[in-house]
């Protein structure tokens, strides 16, 4: 199953650790908040992604299943 990185923007405090640990998927905006590339993680990146998730001081980074299409009802 392919997973993607997601950020909870409410919890995120712009520590920037995730961008250091997973530069393949995460860059920072002009204010230091992560911009996530939602391309599914390759097997080689899984471990790095997990490390980034564990390192986030506000637990704002998560690994999610590829966005379910149904979850967008508003």
């Amino acid at each position, binding site marked *: 199953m392919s997973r993607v990185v997601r*950020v*909870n*923007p*409410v*919890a*995120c*405090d*712009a520590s920037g650790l995730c961008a250091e640990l997973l530069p393949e998927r995460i860059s920072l*905006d*002009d*204010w*230091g*908040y992560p*911009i996530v590339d939602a391309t599914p993680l390759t097997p080689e990146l899984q471990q790095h992604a997990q490390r980034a998730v564990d390192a986030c001081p506000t637990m704002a980074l998560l690994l999610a299943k590829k966005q379910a299409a149904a*979850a967008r*009802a*508003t």
Partner: protein
Amino acid sequence: MSALPVEDRGLPRLFAGLPRDGSPLGLDAHHAVHGPQPSAAHLIELVRESGLRGRGGGGFPAGQKLAVVASARRRPVVVANGAEGEPVSFKDKALLRRAPHLVLDGIALAAAAVGAREAFLAVDRKAQDALDAVSYALDERRARRVDRGLRLQLVVVPSGFVSGEETALVNLLNGGPGKPTFTPPRPFERGVRGAPTLVQNVETLAHLALIGRLGPEWFRALGTESEPGSALFTVSGAVARPGVYEAALGTPMRALLAQAGGVRGEPGAVLVGGYFGSWVEPFTALGLSLLDSELAAAGAALGAGAVVVLPQVACGLDQAARVARYLADESAGQCGPCVNGLAALAGALESLAGGAGDTRPQALRWLQQVRGRGACRHPDGAIRFVESSIEVFADEVELHLKGRCSGRRGEFMPTPRKRP
């Protein structure tokens, strides 16, 4: 099943039979005009066939939402969203003030259809007339035991642009601060007290109450195949009679503005879809119809149906900067990209309006960076507004860069102060 014949295709629908003195339609008069409350037996199917979409701005198919909530394993809760926080939209307030029983019928029907025993009607704290009309209507219904088996509670919501966002409402009902929350879970999965929650705009529920009586064919007699029915529109700005008007989807913009007494003076631009919407050049705007399929070509969408005519005497760039600052200030303050990005974008527009240099390159960079990165759609809506302002007022930007301006400043677009 019906008090009105199916062949009655005319308007008004939601505003039918309203007293001329501006007072609300009481319960007896409501029943005389619309007929008794119908059964909820096949409601979900009827609403599906009607093609009714959410009238709160999201446009999600109402029948599909009902079906999803009805199929949940837990007993659901219904939330009627009348917390209209948009300064240029007052159609929900008008509907609650004039035809409260239609909305309450819709709530009761939707609740019965999905199997809910508890419902909440959320209304903006500042909408005193709407609150009074709803309270009175609820008293009338209690006295007559109209909504038996349903606990229906009126909830007063703090004013604010994002207060009406559905996760913010659920958050408030759960005892939280009334700010949007990170999803999933979305309210239809887990909402009020963890129950699957149907959040539906009050106008959507009013249409639903009529579809339950008159059926999907009647509903589809107005509008088009893909965008059926009628909707409430708030028309403001440079028109002779600003107000809330009911029109079929597909009505020419020109006809809607004519209902509002016509444009006063020369129009400078038309804002379609409210503060999350887009500016359209007046000549283009007057040639369009009230359909998303047609507005899309002009980069616009109906949203919650707010249309503002900016007079030519007003400097569009100055107005855009003021609205952008308002939207930045109305951020719930939770997500970094929204807090920082919208403030930066408002600053960029202010610099352009003040002739302080060409900030467009930075603005375009921020538009790209911020898009899609909030917990709710507030930043995305604000970005659409800023982007369209830079595009549509491009000539004005060039003038300002040369230290000139074609119009004047002033408070043409309402930007209410942040809640006290």
